[in-house]
């Protein structure tokens, strides 16, 4: 549907803001280098204040970078105003024009492009069908539910066939259930339209569900660019490990390639390029271990709670409290608070940092 899929490249992009309290300058985004492939769905993910929205707004043109250059396709776009950039944004607050009906909202961008009336009518009708709003052309925006307004905002951005589609936390105003169904919908529509999409969210499950690639940011820095799977299994650092899913960090020492000593016992653990003798943090996901009466690392159960799908344990190992979730607890032994138990790791679950 899009006339041409465009990639986006951020070349050493920084943005400096002044802290209103201290009056000091600080980096809202620092030296970001991103390469977003044409047609891919990429998510900027991070806690609030990490610079993800600033990055998106720089791509849209609402903010100007202080260092570096942004390219849309092969064209540098730093000096272009938002109306001259081949991007379209879906806003967090939807930002529908309240004095127009649905048709006029969606047709707004087309009219600016001075298209023929009949062409506009056909395009608007088609796009409303794509987002599931057939026949709603004459409604006013305040007669729609939040989810419907979101679809109008999406239709309005899609209909001008932008090179890149930008999403600024578009689902954060919807209730939890609708959020899940809308994200699937957005992914479907993006694939059907075959359009490049950059999506901002602080919700990691949303990011995992929707993206080809995630860009994880923290305090203005890009921490990791990878597929959601890589970010989960092979985080670059403690921040990423902690932010994506839940993580336990066990102190350890590299003994040899892929062998780490934890609390006096040697376990199998991916060590990457770490040298023997190096101190390390071993990342353990709660679902990556189970409790049994025999095994390598001994601990004491401090908390045990039945959650339905899993049994939730906190186990004290040395001086570290480790969270374990044992799935299908019906088939295994349930440990009580105060019991001693051994941790057993499934293959390929430990990763040293």
């Amino acid at each position: 549907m899009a006339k041409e899929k465009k990639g986006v490249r951020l070349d050493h992009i920084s943005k400096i803001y002044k802290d209103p309290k201290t009056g000091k300058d600080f980096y809202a985004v620092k030296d970001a280098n991103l390469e977003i492939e044409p047609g891919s769905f990429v998510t900027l993910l991070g806690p609030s204040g990490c610079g993800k929205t600033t990055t998106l707004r720089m791509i849209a043109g609402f903010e100007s970078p202080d260092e570096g250059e942004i390219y849309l396709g092969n064209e540098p776009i730093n000096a272009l105003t938002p109306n001259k950039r081949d991007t379209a944004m879906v806003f967090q607050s939807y930002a529908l024009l309240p004095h127009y009906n649905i048709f006029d909202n969606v047709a707004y961008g087309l009219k600016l492009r001075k298209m023929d009336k009949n062409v506009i009518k056909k395009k608007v009708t088609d796009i409303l069908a794509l987002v599931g709003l057939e026949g709603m052309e004459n409604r006013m925006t305040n007669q729609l539910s939040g989810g419907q307004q979101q679809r109008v905002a999406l239709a309005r951005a899609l209909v001008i066939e932008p090179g890149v589609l930008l999403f600024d936390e578009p689902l954060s105003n919807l209730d939890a259930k609708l959020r899940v169904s809308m994200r699937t919908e957005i992914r479907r529509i993006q694939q059907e339209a075959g359009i490049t999409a950059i999506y901002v969210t602080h919700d990691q499950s949303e990011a995992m569900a929707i993206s080809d690639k995630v860009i994880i940011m923290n305090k203005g820095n890009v921490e990791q660019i990878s597929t959601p799977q890589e970010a989960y299994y092979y985080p670059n650092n403690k921040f990423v490990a902690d932010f994506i899913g839940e993580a336990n960090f066990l102190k350890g020492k590299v003994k040899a390639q892929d062998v780490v000593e934890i609390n006096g016992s040697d376990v199998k653990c991916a060590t990457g390029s770490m040298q023997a003798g190096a101190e390390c943090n071993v990342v353990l996901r709660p679902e990556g271990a189970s409790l049994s009466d025999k095994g390598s690392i001994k601990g004491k159960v401090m908390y045990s709670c039945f959650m339905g799908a899993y049994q939730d344990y906190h186990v004290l190992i040395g001086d570290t409290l480790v969270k374990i979730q044992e799935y299908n607890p019906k088939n295994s032994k349930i440990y009580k608070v105060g019991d001693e138990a051994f941790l057993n790791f499934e293959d390929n679950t430990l990763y040293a940092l």
Partner: protein
Amino acid sequence: MAKSQSASLDRKKLMGDPIMVTTIVLLIVFLTVFILYPLAILLVDSFINESGVTLSTFKRVMDLANFRRAITNTLKVGFVVGIASALIGLLFAYVEVYVKLRTKFMEGLFKVVSMLPVVSPPFVLSLSMIMLFGKAGIITRFLLKIYDNSVYGFWGITIVQTLTFFPVCYMMLKGLLKNIDPSLEEAARDMGASRSKVFMTVTLPLILPGLGNAFLVTFIESIADFANPMIIGGSYDTLATTIYLQITGAYDKQGAAAMAVILLAITLLMFVVQKYYLERKSTATLSGKASRERMLITDKSVTIPLSIICSALALFVIIMYICVPFGAMFKTWGYDFHLTFKWFKQVFVKYKGFKAFKDSFILSLISAPITALLSMIISYLVVKRKFKGKGFIEAVSMLAMAVPGTVLGIGYIRGFSGGLFGSGFLQGLYGTGAILVIVFVVRSLPTGTRSGISALRQIDKSIEESAYDMGADSFKVFMTVTLPLIKDSFLSGFVTSFVRSITAISAIILLVTPSYLLITVQINEFAEKGSYGIACAFASILILITYGSVLLMNFIIKHFGTSRRIKTED
């Protein structure tokens, strides 16, 4: 760290938007030439003479006994009027927000009071004050049989100004009281405080900054007021009238300029305190929203006295207004109460009334859309855009609020009678209708801008961004998104500026030439001469025009305004 790249990019982006750049440049030129320049000329005039920079002009005017008296007079009146207006305003606001008086009659009274300051021409109350309490006053002469009562002077001005300005305080304080969370007061009651204790220890401290704010706003209005002291001041001169007489009577332009600088210094100082200290403080303490509806006071020992006081005050004000059309219809006020149309006839036949109404009407009608559009553009730029010079635009258009009309008038005389800087450039402007229109615009700009800014602050920034993002340039965004969304504010700005212009006098009276007859100038002239019948006839028609415009505006907003379409279908 250097922010230079983003600054230069922002500049580039701005330059890529020629309409926007042109608008900003034109605005800055307009504000500089028509607000800053005339004021600067006053400074130059009063500080510089043939021998260079000097204080001799100031020394000369300060040596004038009548000028020194005028300063104390003005401050005294301003102080008393400020306090009285704030207190009466507080009484009305408190009764409206806290006391259960839900009769149709009371509601009507309060509504009328809140509308008066919008539609009232400046000297109406002075006229009726004279007609009710003066030598031939109905109340003094016929009811009380006092034959030599003098309303002229301090008390005349003070009473008239208080009645003119307290409705403004009432509206300001009403907004503040409504923002007090009732549970604060309920908590105090719950802990055992009596109602009066709650008022003294909770309500009053909370609105104290707001009360100070109301006092200062009235104070500024009072010392800048020209019309009332002119008519009812008698020999009691205030700064505004003294400056006027200095230039029209003594032809002392330098002296008048120096006096104007002193008056401006006083109002500016008050304005700065009000704007940057009290206004901020009063909104900061009361930013909370009322959590739920307030339990109104139903206790008869409270409601009955309060409602009697308020009704009496409101009725008194209303009688004063009704007095004006009657003044225009009695054969001889105070002596012969036969109804007649001779004054109206004289207005139109003998005194070119038709031309006066036409001139006033047309000039105001030209300036109203200019003001409304200009103030919407300024508000849009101030609230929604980032650029260098934005602070300048905002500050100067707000500054105009603190400039008394008389000061502006003197500034225009000194600044434009010989062209810009005496060079002859733009000299053609002086004495034309165009300069009158410009004065109307400058005088109404701050009110329009203020209402535009508060309307725009309520619109989510991303609505305009989305239009911008879809490919609309700044001009398109303003025309297709911003303006339609603040249509109501635009309309009310239009009507307010029309009404303000058609009732304006202080600056205009210094600049008008015989080729233009303006209603307000006529009223002033006839009231000065003691021809109250004719003055009342002019004033009655003027009230009809202003009241009609406000009614028309409310009708249009109700039936064609945006807010109705957007809000009621919610």
